């Protein structure tokens, strides 16, 4: 089967709407298809990755721990738009530290997150063949 460049663009905050959760479900299923996958977190999408989410009181399931498992599914190109993060008063320290292990380098642990400018992310987006928007 051909390998295509897939991008998931995540632009919605978690819990207020279902898109973040159901987008993550697509990414997990999609990982089995061995495509060239990138995730982009833009605008309120960056809020999906905040540390310390505690959801008991709102009666919803906390799905944020699942992001830490993405590396195990070989989903390791995770782009965060710098402008979006800064506008929200956040830095990478406020987000989960996502990593993957590189089989080709004796399972060395590497960062999955790539902090990029809007302009850099626009270039990455232009290279995609299929863009799933949430």
């Amino acid at each position, binding site marked *: 089967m051909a390998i295509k460049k897939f991008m998931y663009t995540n632009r919605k905050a978690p*819990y*207020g*709407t*279902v898109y973040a959760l159901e987008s993550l479900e697509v990414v997990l299923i999609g990982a089995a298809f061995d495509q060239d996958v990138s995730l982009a977190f833009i605008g309120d999408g960056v809020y999906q990755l905040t540390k310390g989410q505690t959801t008991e*009181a*709102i*009666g*919803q*399931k906390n799905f944020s721990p699942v992001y830490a498992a993405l590396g195990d599914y070989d989903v390791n190109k995770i782009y965060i738009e710098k402008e979006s993060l800064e506008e929200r008063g956040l830095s990478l320290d406020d987000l989960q530290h996502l990593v993957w292990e590189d089989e080709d380098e004796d399972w060395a642990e590497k960062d999955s997150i790539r902090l990029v400018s809007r302009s850099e992310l626009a270039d990455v987006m232009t290279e995609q063949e299929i863009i799933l928007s949430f």
Partner: protein
Amino acid sequence: MKFSIQINEGPYQHQASDTAYQFAKAALAAGHEIFRVFFYHDGVNNATRLAVPPQDDRNVAKQWSELALENDLDMVVCIAAAQRRGIMDAAEAKRQGLDADNLMAGFRISGLGQLIEAGIESDRLIVFGA
């Protein structure tokens, strides 16, 4: 005090129904009366009995149904909005010649006048939506 609640969005897609549910529980716990919960727009989709969410997630329709049955809440689903979106009780399904219905116990289907009446009869009406 006498509250009524309007819910404009369906379950899961938006948090509106979850927030309204937590609000309703807290209002009852504080000794307030809930005159009516009115489901409008996609809010009617909270009233299906056919939902089977994952085991580790809440069942929004069931939560409302149980809250209503325990507290004798009047939960009204707007008939016009429900017909557009395929929420049917047995009587209406029969009248429309449909072969199935899907309304959950604890909800009833009625007209928009019930929303206006809720506004008139309640001390406060609060809308949850998107």
